């Protein structure tokens, strides 16, 4: 008979077998046995400043590595503090396992000290959840949780552990087999060949096709297959915000990002296309605008692992349910290239006519700074962001070439995500250069995690686009609320001194000429975090933009309108204007 072990030890044993190297969290009454069992284990436990930080770190770790991120919190307030982070991971389909403490089984439901109905609170924002009332279920539950989090359409799974289930003892029997009869991905690993053939037929007959790729390409590690499809068929590729990095933006067939703040020519191309090939993307409303108007001339193909994504917002003609990688492999095997020469020439013309533009102003502009960061890191950094204008400018002006390099909260749009996500990413990829391009509003929602970064001497670089505003809110107020700035101004903060207080290097930059040297200086610092306070223009707007409910060919802040307003136009540097771009070669 195997020796008996405590529930918490069984948990740790199972985490080890899942290959967990690091977990983020904060201890408290209800999860002390878990922290105690981790104390002498090979798993590195990172104390965070706030549980929201722990959840975002687990999320950032998962996005940067493709592995499951783990976070830990105590019952009650610890668990409720995780909620924003879990919801963020859920909306973007990120594999995270959250392990929470819970009050003793015998007092559950009695409003005991630090009791919250964690399973109930998180039910709509988890892929699945477990309450372990019996220590004999521990090993099976942990095994299943990791499996569910990381397979199919990934997502967060929560394990709620009443204290008694972590201190009770039982034999440790590792479940070699997983058998979850209601979990459908096991039942249907087969791909639908007939549907793929019909889609291939539609591709061969199209004249103006576009591939619209989303995060599914990254989760499903299908970048090579996507590249092959694009090159084989000469079909240009646009990505969603979360799809950035899934297709190299240096590639001549890349159209960058589409949607609300997507490129002007890209949105025009989408409005004109006759076939839209959605791959691992969910037709989010920030992409489609008004669903009936979205790519209205086009037949639509939609490849997705999750059947519930299909026909959810936009009705498609060729649904293909299946693992994106497998589907693309089969498609690549049979697909015939349409003649897209005329179409590529049209797009190329639009690209030259409607480049991404901003006008020089007296003060520093975030677009310029982000472009400089992109160039100096050669597009090879892992870049996390907050939410707002800076996030959209990062999507526009940083040239993403590699999968798992853009770490941003797309679905939930969680301000405060950037710093902890960057920390998680750096733990997962110690050798990567990790940036957090942040707003002064977003950054101040989780600033305290500088303590975590500093303690572990992480060389992350935080670049704050300090416009002393909730910039994106201010922009909408200017556009739609007659410039009434209701609570969108932010009190100035001395981020350099703040950085120093946490043991980080602080650098303030106010002039254009200082930008490059400052970035270079930050990049040379490898033994602690650097916080760069870029004091930028307060009223710069993020263009172009599709106003809510408007179609893709009626954008605001277009090239024409900006040009008429005067000033020195600056193009996105990475857009080569030579003819070679978008050629068939």
């Amino acid at each position, binding site marked *: 008979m195997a020796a008996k072990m405590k529930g918490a030890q069984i948990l740790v044993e199972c985490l080890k077998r899942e290959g967990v190297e690091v977990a983020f969290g904060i201890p408290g009454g209800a999860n002390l046995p878990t922290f105690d069992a981790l104390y002498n284990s090979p798993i590195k436990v990172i104390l965070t400043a706030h549980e929201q930080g722990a959840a975002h770190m687990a999320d950032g770790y998962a996005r940067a590595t493709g592995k499951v991120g783990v976070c830990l919190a105590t019952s009650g307030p610890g668990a409720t503090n995780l909620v924003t982070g879990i919801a963020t991971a859920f909306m973007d389909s990120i594999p995270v396992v959250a392990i929470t403490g819970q009050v003793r089984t015998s007092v559950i439901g009695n409003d005991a000290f630090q009791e919250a109905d964690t*399973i*109930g609170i998180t*039910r*709509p924002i988890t*892929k*699945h959840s477990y*309450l372990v009332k019996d220590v004999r279920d521990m090993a099976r539950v942990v095994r299943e949780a990791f499996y*569910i989090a990381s397979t199919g359409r990934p997502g967060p799974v929560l394990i709620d552990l009443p204290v008694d289930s972590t201190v009770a003892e039982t034999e440790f029997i590792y479940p070699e087999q997983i058998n*979850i*009869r*209601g*979990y*459908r991905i096991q039942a249907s690993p087969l791909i639908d060949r007939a549907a793929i053939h019909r889609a291939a037929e539609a591709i061969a007959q199209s004249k103006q096709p576009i591939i619209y790729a989303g995060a599914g390409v990254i989760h499903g590690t299908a970048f090579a297959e996507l590249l092959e499809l694009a090159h084989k068929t000469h079909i240009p590729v646009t990505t969603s915000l979360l799809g950035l990095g899934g297709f190299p933006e240096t590639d001549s067939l890349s159209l960058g990002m589409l949607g609300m703040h997507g490129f002007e020519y890209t949105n025009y191309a989408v409005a004109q296309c006759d076939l839209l090939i959605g791959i691992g993307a969910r037709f989010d409303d920030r992409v489609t605008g008004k669903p009936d108007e979205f790519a209205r001339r086009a037949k639509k193909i939609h490849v997705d692992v*999750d*059947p*519930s994504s*299909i*026909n*959810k917002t936009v*009705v498609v003609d060729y649904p293909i349910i299946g693992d994106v990688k497998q589907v693309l492999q089969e498609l690549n095997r049979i697909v015939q290239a349409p003649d897209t020469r005329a179409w590529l020439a049209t797009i190329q013309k639009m690209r030259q006519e409607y480049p991404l533009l901003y006008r020089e102003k007296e003060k520093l502009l975030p677009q310029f700074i982000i472009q400089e960061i992109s160039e100096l890191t050669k597009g090879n950094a892992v870049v996390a962001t907050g939410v707002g204008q800076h996030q959209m400018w990062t999507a526009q002006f940083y040239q993403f070439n590699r999968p798992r390099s853009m770490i941003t909260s797309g679905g939930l749009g969680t301000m405060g995500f950037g710093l902890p996500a960057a920390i998680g990413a750096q733990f997962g990829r110690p050798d990567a250069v990790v940036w957090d391009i942040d707003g002064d509003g977003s950054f101040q929602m989780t600033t305290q995690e500088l303590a975590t970064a500093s303690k572990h001497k992480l060389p992350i670089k935080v670049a704050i686009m300090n416009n002393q505003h909730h910039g994106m809110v201010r922009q909408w107020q200017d556009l739609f609320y007659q410039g009434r700035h209701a609570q969108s101004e932010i009190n100035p903060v001395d981020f350099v001194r703040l950085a120093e207080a946490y043991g980080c290097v602080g650098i303030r930059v106010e002039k254009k000429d200082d930008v490059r040297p400052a970035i270079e200086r930050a990049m040379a610092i490898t033994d602690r975090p650097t916080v760069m306070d870029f004091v930028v223009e307060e009223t710069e707007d993020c263009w172009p933009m599709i106003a809510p409910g408007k179609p893709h060919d009626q954008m605001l802040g277009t090239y024409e309108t900006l040009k008429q307003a005067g000033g020195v136009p600056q193009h996105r540097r990475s857009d080569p204007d030579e003819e070679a771009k978008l050629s068939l070669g």
Partner: protein
Amino acid sequence: MSERHTISCLVENHFGVLARVSGLISARAFNIDSLTVSTTEDPTISRMTIVVDADAIKLEQVKNQLNRLIDVIEVQELKEGQFIDRELLLARVSVDGRSRAEMESIVRNFGGRLAEADEDSVVIEAAGDTHTLDRLVEQLRSYGITKLVRTGRVALEKQ
């Protein structure tokens, strides 16, 4: 076009599953007519019969969303004419000496019975498909229904 559809699900028979299913349905703003849960021949599995008011696209979404739940083992839409469905109805109806006999004959016509009777009211018990029970309720209305309860639909596929 919006129509009534009957969905039959097999789910894990453990704690919290009903909350997951009903939570999902309300969070997605699907219109639900009735939902019943009961045990099956297998004690580890329960059957939920859900009647929703939805158009074809919405219905597809309900089924897909239900399928996403790990605790849902199987989701099946029961198509018109291909299943047997029943509900149980209990109604307290006011009666006087004259109407009591009429009442009894109506109830007998519907294959029901009086579950309880006293001086000025009776409790009627009847089982049948939704449509039949709707008709029964119509006929009872003029007598004065003081309380009404129906179980909601349970259904089984025909062979």
